[in-house]
């Protein structure tokens, strides 16, 4: 039963299938090498890149920007989300504004971020922090809203102090939904940083992708895309590990 439904089998199968098509079509010369370079060439490029310290510098820049942006977005998102979420009236006033902002493709504000913070890390951090902030604030509010009224009424009637209310009732009850926001924001912050770097930057993985694509160095481009995909998978995997461990 388990082996038949093991989700890893079709996953691995799909990856192998794509690799096979890639290998076959490029090997037979059906695709222009500028569009899709040979599999072996890209893998060789990837190995090559992983041996150069410069690559780790760019990975470091991207991860640094992402970490700073994420920290800011958690700090502001939880703060704003908590204040807005705990007061019913503030929720009514501000939640629609946050939701409306969430529907806006924030990338259009990125040029403004460049005007304000320049071409270096500042603009990426600002853009990414705002993206993460919105998600975390929205999920924190949703989490607090999901706390049942009865739970609050019961703990109040049993004489919970303001502090107990906060730390023993509201926060733990809001946690599962807020956590979803925290998780989503990690990926959002990573993607926004890379997107920002691709638009205009002086360093970082996104910058290298933009550079390779402008120079039509397709093998480099694919290799950098693979590095980013690998990092994204690691982040996803780590998040799934850590959060299920906490919930269970």
């Amino acid at each position, binding site marked *: 039963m388990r082996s038949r*439904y093991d989700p890893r089998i079709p996953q691995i199968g*799909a990856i192998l299938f794509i690799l096979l098509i890639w290998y076959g079509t490029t090997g037979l010369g059906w695709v222009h090498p500028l569009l899709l370079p040979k599999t072996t060439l890209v893998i060789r490029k990837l190995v090559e890149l992983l041996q150069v310290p410069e690559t780790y510098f760019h990975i470091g820049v991207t991860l640094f920007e992402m970490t700073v942006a994420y920290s800011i977005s958690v700090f502001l998102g939880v703060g704003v989300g908590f204040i807005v979420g705990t007061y019913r009236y503030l929720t*009514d006033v501000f939640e629609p*504004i946050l939701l409306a902002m969430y529907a806006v*493709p924030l*990338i259009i504000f990125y040029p*403004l971020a460049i*005007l304000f913070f320049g071409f270096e890390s500042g603009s990426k951090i600002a853009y990414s922090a705002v993206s993460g902030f919105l998600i975390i604030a929205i999920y924190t509010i949703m989490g607090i809203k999901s706390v049942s009224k009865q739970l609050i009424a019961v703990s109040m009637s049993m004489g919970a102090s303001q502090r107990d209310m906060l730390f023993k009732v509201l926060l733990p009850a809001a946690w599962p939904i807020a956590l979803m926001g925290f998780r989503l924001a990690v990926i959002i912050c990573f993607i926004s940083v890379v997107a920002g770097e*691709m638009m205009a930057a002086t360093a970082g993985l996104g910058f290298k992708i933009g550079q390779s*694509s402008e120079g039509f160095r397709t093998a480099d481009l694919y290799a950098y895309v693979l590095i980013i995909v690998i990092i994204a998978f690691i982040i996803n995997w780590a998040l799934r590990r850590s959060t299920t461990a906490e919930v269970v």
Partner: protein
Amino acid sequence: MRTMLGKGIIPWRKTATISRAVVIILFILWLEFMVQREYLDPLFVAPPSEIFRMMLVQFTNQNILQAYGITAIEVILGFLIGAIPAILLGISIGVSRYLDKAFTPIVLLVYSIPKITLLPLFILFFGIYINSKIAFGAAHAFFPIILSAIGGTKTVDASLITAAVSMGATRSQVFRSVIIPHTIYPLITGLRLGMNFALLGVLLAELFVSRQGIGYYVRVYTSGFETAELYAVVVVIALIAIFLNEVMRAVEKRLSRWQTG
């Protein structure tokens, strides 16, 4: 005011709406004040009055209007090209438990690849003109829609299907009268997200490389430090995005009304 509120002349919801409007107006006035007094550098921030004036100017500018039109076409085509296969595939995957187990993880796996990194590849394959924007928009729209279609189909209560079948419903009747009405609400949510994502995808592609469309003007204004022009375009795009989202949310609410009973 207090007594009025107390007696309930102005309902709670309405005062929230009024407060929201006040907050937004205060923010605009604050921005105007800050720029006029040059607490904020006018090179980087345009005063709202100037942005508004520029919006009116741009609405009479043929080139800008045409750019909005091109972007709109890209978004609509991208959305449709992403949405139609996503709905069909999603429902087919969702109705079968085995297909769901086999393919949903693959969809999730591909979904977790940051699509922005693939943008240069889209441009390589589809060129720098309208095609690459449509394709990138479609790729963005596809995933939230297929996931919601799978999710929506899966949540159909199995006993409802059993009941329909035992009362002699044919396969297509089960599909039309049971599965589709139950899938439609999560699907609409997915379509709303898909619409937002299609807009995001198209704008990303236009901002990265383009000769036309509104993203092109955003780039031109940025590099020329034409702040008021830039803000005007950004504000209009944001308002369009908010408007689209609100329309879809209204549809969502309307279509789900029968279920709450």
